[in-house]
């Protein structure tokens, strides 16, 4: 038995390092949404708060059915589409998120500071799969580097709430 202790410790150490060292794992989204196919539409058409509110919001079925009358293609399963058609909420998983103690407003960054969505979310228009992980590392250093570069407020309380 005693011989097994070191390998078990090694396994645990590897597991711990794996979790700590790698970025967050991508999550599976309920629908294989293709951003590239929708690139002709402005972001704020579906993410309605992106330019006018604090939260951009992830579109729900009512947004889909404004344009789609039937299931778009085989990328959406019949069962998933029946939920959408019935107006049931889609179980999107929000992957790009700021911590609870941060006050972030999309409007302040997009329509007021004239930042492109891509500056934080990457080139969504080129994506053929939904976001499984944030395009940018959401960390204070990321925020601060841009704030410093752009001359935005670096007061802690400007973002910390």
């Amino acid at each position, binding site marked *: 038995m005693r011989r097994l202790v070191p390998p078990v410790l090694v396994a645990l150490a590897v597991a711990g390092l794996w979790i700590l060292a790698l970025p967050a794992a991508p999550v599976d989204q309920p629908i294989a949404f293709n951003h590239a196919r929708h690139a002709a539409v402005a972001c704020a058409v579906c993410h309605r708060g992106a330019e006018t509110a604090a939260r951009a919001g992830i579109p729900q079925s009512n947004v889909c059915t404004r344009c789609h009358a039937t299931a778009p293609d085989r990328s959406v399963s019949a069962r998933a589409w029946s939920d959408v058609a019935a107006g049931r909420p889609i179980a999107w998983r929000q992957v790009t998120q700021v911590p609870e*103690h941060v006050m972030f407003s999309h409007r302040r960054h997009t329509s007021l500071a004239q930042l492109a969505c891509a500056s934080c979310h990457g080139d969504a228009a080129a994506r053929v799969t939904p976001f499984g992980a944030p395009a940018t590392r959401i960390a204070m250093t990321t925020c601060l580097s841009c704030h410093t570069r752009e001359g935005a407020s670096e007061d802690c309380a400007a973002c910390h709430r």
Partner: protein
Amino acid sequence: MARWGLVIDLDRCTGCQACVVACKHENNVPFSTPETARGGRLMTWLQLVAADLPGRPTASALPLMCQQCDRPPCTDVCPTSATYLNPEGIVAQIYPRCIGCRYCTNACPYAVKVFNWTAPDWPDAMAPMRNPDVSLRPKGVVETCTFCHHRLIAARERARAAGREIAPDDYVPACVATCPAEAMVFGDLSDPHSEVAALAGSPRAFRWMEELGTQPKVIYLREGE
């Protein structure tokens, strides 16, 4: 740069404590029970205290919140700069930086900083009542009045979106907004035309414990003639 200040006219203040409840709801300050209150665990950012003020025969009911000192004794002693004086004169508390040593709470002569002894707790039914603009402080950190700083940020954003400068009425803390006796006035002390600046120059104006050199930006107006 604005210097936010608050004037409280003690002659007008009726001690109704509407401000206390408004503050509690606005800032997600958790509720107490008789036991926790008796053990000094009553969480308030703003409360009424009985203060002996010069020239008054009995103790006056004084609404007491963070005095937003220009020379805050709390920020000096913080080992991690979790509490600091921001450029607009608001004493801010950065919760993820706070290690919970409670040195600031002890250094504050007004005893207005409160500590999260336990994780904040709301009955499930009441959880949706929490203000999403204000964070929920985890257990083990210190918190205090921020002059409803989140309202300033929201007001500034609204003003910018409307393409104008922030106006005096845009940004008012929750306590001032509800004060039925109109005893509280809030505004920019650095603006000589503001109402607070005028009132701060009143012969009735005093800053509580100003002899300690804390230079508060909460200014009280004395009761009586």
